[in-house]
C-alpha cells in the first residue's frame, strides 16, 4: 500500500516547460485520474513516477520513499502503455511472466501467479498465442495482466483505452474500475478523455500547459470548477462562458444605503444585448468583484424560453437521440449551447430564440475575466 506524492515537481525539456511546480498526492488505494488536453504534461508526470523521466526540480515519493534517483525496476510500479507495449516475440504467458522472471520468482510460483492473472482477465485460453494473434481488446487485457501479476505498489496507466473502439472502451473502463477496486492498488491514470475521467476517477487532477488546475472528486469538479479552463474542459459539451460586466441595478443604485449593506440591489451580469440577473446567494459571494467577469452556464442550466434574458440565433441543432444540443450565437458572437430533452420542440436553424437561465443558484458560475479564476466561495 502506498501513496504517491509530487512535491514541487518541475520538468523541462530544453526550453520547454512540460510540468510546472506540480504538487499533488495520490492517496493510498485511490484511483486518481490525471486529465488534460494533449501536451499538458500529464504523461510526463506519470513517466516521472515510473522513473522513465528525470525530474528537473522537486521530489516524487512512493510511500515514504523519495524515488527521484531510484531505478524504474526498483520502484515497484507497473505501467500500462497506450500502445500496450507487449513483447511481440513472447507468448501471452511469457509476457505476463516477464516481470516475475526478472524478479527471480521461482518457477512454480510464477506459473501459479500467471494462471491467476490470466484467469482474472479471461486470458486462460490465449496463453500460448503471440500478441500479433490477439485482438486489440485482448492485447489490452494482456497488458493489464502483466501489470497486476506482480502485485506492485502502484499502477500507472497511460491512456490505456485510447486504442480501443468505442464499445470495447466502455466495457474495459468498467473492468479496470472493478479490478482496481478489488485490488485496492494506488493508481495514477492518465487520459485526455473527460468521460473516462468522470466515470473512473475517485478524484480527478486537471492539468493544462504543465500546471495543475484543480484536484477534486468528479462531482465537485463538475459543480464547482476552479477556473474557466476546467469549466470548459469538463462536461460534454463544456460549460458556456460569456464575458460580461458585473453591474448592480434596481433601487439601491442611487440610494443612500449603497455600500452600507449587502443584497439591496440586484446584481446582474450585463453584456451587449442582454443582462442576466444573479440569484441573491450567488450575488452575495461575488459582490465587489469584477467588474469584468465571465459568466459560466452549463448547457443543461439554460433552456429556450420566450421570456429568456439572452437573445441568440440558432446555428446548429445536434440530435443525439436522448437529448438535443442547440448551438446558438449571441449578438456579440459568443457561442452558447443549450442541452434539451428529446421531447422539447426543436428550433429551426437561423431562428432567433431567447435563452433563459435556471433559477437554481448552482447553475451560475462566475469567473474573473482577467485570471479566469472562480469568484465567490469555492
Amino acid at each position: 500500500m502506498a501513496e504517491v506524492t509530487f512535491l514541487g515537481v518541475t520538468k523541462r525539456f530544453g526550453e520547454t516547460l512540460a510540468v510546472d511546480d506540480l504538487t499533488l498526492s495520490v492517496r493510498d488505494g485511490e484511483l486518481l485520474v490525471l486529465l488534460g488536453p494533449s501536451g499538458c504534461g500529464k504523461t510526463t508526470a506519470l513517466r516521472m513516477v515510473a522513473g522513465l523521466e528525470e525530474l528537473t526540480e522537486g521530489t516524487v515519493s512512493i510511500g515514504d520513499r523519495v524515488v527521484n534517483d531510484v531505478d524504474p525496476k526498483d520502484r515497484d510500479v507497473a505501467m500500462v502503455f497506450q500502445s500496450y507495449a507487449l513483447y511481440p516475440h513472447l507468448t501471452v504467458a511469457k509476457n505476463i511472466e516477464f516481470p516475475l522472471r526478472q524478479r527471480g520468482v521461482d518457477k512454480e510460483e510464477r506459473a501459479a501467479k500467471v494462471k491467476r492473472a490470466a484467469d482474472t482477465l479471461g486470458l486462460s485460453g490465449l496463453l500460448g498465442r503471440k500478441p500479433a494473434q490477439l485482438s486489440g481488446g485482448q492485447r489490452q487485457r494482456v497488458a493489464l495482466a502483466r501489470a497486476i501479476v506482480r502485485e506492485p505498489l502502484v499502477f500507472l496507466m497511460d491512456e490505456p483505452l485510447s486504442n480501443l473502439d468505442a464499445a470495447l472502451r466502455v466495457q474495459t473502463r468498467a473492468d479496470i474500475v472493478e479490478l482496481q477496486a478489488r485490488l485496492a492498488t494506488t493508481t495514477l491514470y492518465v487520459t485526455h478523455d473527460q468521460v473516462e475521467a468522470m466515470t473512473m476517477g475517485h478524484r480527478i487532477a486537471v492539468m493544462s500547459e504543465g500546471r495543475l488546475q484543480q484536484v477534486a472528486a468528479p462531482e465537485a469538479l463538475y459543480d464547482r470548477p476552479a477556473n474557466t479552463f476546467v469549466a470548459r474542459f469538463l462536461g460534454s459539451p463544456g460549460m458556456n462562458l460569456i464575458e460580461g460586466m458585473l453591474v448592480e441595478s434596481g433601487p439601491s443604485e442611487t440610494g443612500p444605503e449603497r455600500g452600507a449593506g449587502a443584497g439591496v440591489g440586484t446584481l446582474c451580469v450585463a453584456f451587449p444585448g442582454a443582462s442576466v440577473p444573479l440569484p441573491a446567494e450567488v450575488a452575495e459571494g461575488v459582490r465587489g468583484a469584477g467588474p469584468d467577469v465571465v459568466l459560466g452556464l452549463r448547457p443543461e442550466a439554460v433552456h429556450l424560453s420566450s421570456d429568456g434574458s439572452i437573445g441568440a440565433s440558432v446555428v446548429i441543432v445536434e440530435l443525439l437521440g436522448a437529448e438535443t444540443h442547440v448551438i446558438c450565437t449571441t449578438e456579440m458572437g459568443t457561442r452558447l449551447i443549450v442541452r434539451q430533452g428529446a421531447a422539447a420542440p426543436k428550433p429551426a436553424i437561423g431562428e432567433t430564440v431567447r435563452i433563459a437561465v435556471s433559477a437554481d443558484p448552482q447553475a451560475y458560475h462566475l469567473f474573473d475575466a482577467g485570471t479566469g479564476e472562480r469568484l465567490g466561495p469555492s
Partner: protein
Amino acid sequence: MTTVTAGIGGVAEAAEATGVATAPQPRHGLHTRRRKEALLAYGLLLPALVLFGAFSFYPFFRNFKLMLYETPPVPGLPAHYVGLHQIGSTLTSTQFTQSLVTSLIFVVLVIPISLILGLALAVAAHRKLKGMAVYRMIFSSTVVSSVAVASVVFGTLLNPVVGLLPWLGINPTPPALESTTWALPAVALITIWQFLGLVFIIMLAGLQSVPDELLEAARIDGANAWTRFWRMTVPLLSPTIFFALVVSTIYAMQAFGAIDILIGPMNTVRLHTNVLIYNIVNTNSPALENNAGQAAVMATVLFLITLGMTLLQMRFLERRVSYAR
C-alpha cells in the same frame, strides 16, 4: 450472395435494354488511354532493359554456355565443346576447392566481427545525445569510401617502412601483406572496416524500428540493461541482424578490390588470399590463365551460393510477420 449477383446482372441487363448510347465511346477512350500508358511505360523501361540485357542477362546466360566449352590456353584459338566434363574436372580441382575454402575462411574472419562491431556502434549511436548525428555520419562514412582509396590507405598503414605498424614498433617479418599467415587477415581487416558502415546503417535502422515503449516496459518490469539488450533488442532485431548477415556474406563472397590492390596476382602469397571471386577473375584473365570455361563453372558455383543465401533470407523475412505488433 446469389441474389446480389442477380441484382447487379439485372441492372446491367436493364441498362443494355434501354440502350445506353454513350457507353461504347468512353470504353473506346479508355482503351486508347491504356495503350498510350502501356507504350509510355515500355518506353521508359527500355533504357534499363537494354542496359540490364547487355550487361546482366546476356552475360548471365552466356556463362552457362561457356561452362560447356574448353578454351585453349593461347588467346585467339577457337574454344571447343567438351560438355559436362569440364564442370566435373573444375569442381574437383584443388585450385577450386582451395579457393572455396579460402573464401569461407575470409567470410568467417569478416562477418562475425563486422556484425558485432556494426551492432555495437549502432547501439552506441542510437542514444539520444547531443552531437550524435556527427558520430552517425562518421560511422556510416566507410560505405561511401572507395575500395581503392581504402586499400591504399591500409596498404600504407601496413607498410613495413612508413606504416603504422613499424611506428608502433611492430615489425613482422615477412611484412603482413607478404606473410602467408597474415595476408588474408589483413585483407579481411580492410573489408571489415569497409563493411562496418553498411552494417551500422542497417543495424541503426533496425534499432530505430524497435519501439522505445517496449524497452521502457521491460525496464519497469525489472529488466536491467543487459537483459533488455539480450531479451528484447536482439530478438526484435533478429530479422535485421539476419539481413545484415546475408547481405554482408554475399558482399564478402564478392570482395575483390582490396585483394587485387594489396596482394595482386603476382604476389607469392596469392594462393593464400585466392578467394573464389579472385580465382574466377584470374582464371578468366587472358593475361593469366585464359580459361573462360573453368571460370564460368566457378562463377556458377558463386551464383548458386548467393542464390541460396538470398532464398534463405526471403524465407526468414516471411517469418518476420509474426513479429509485427
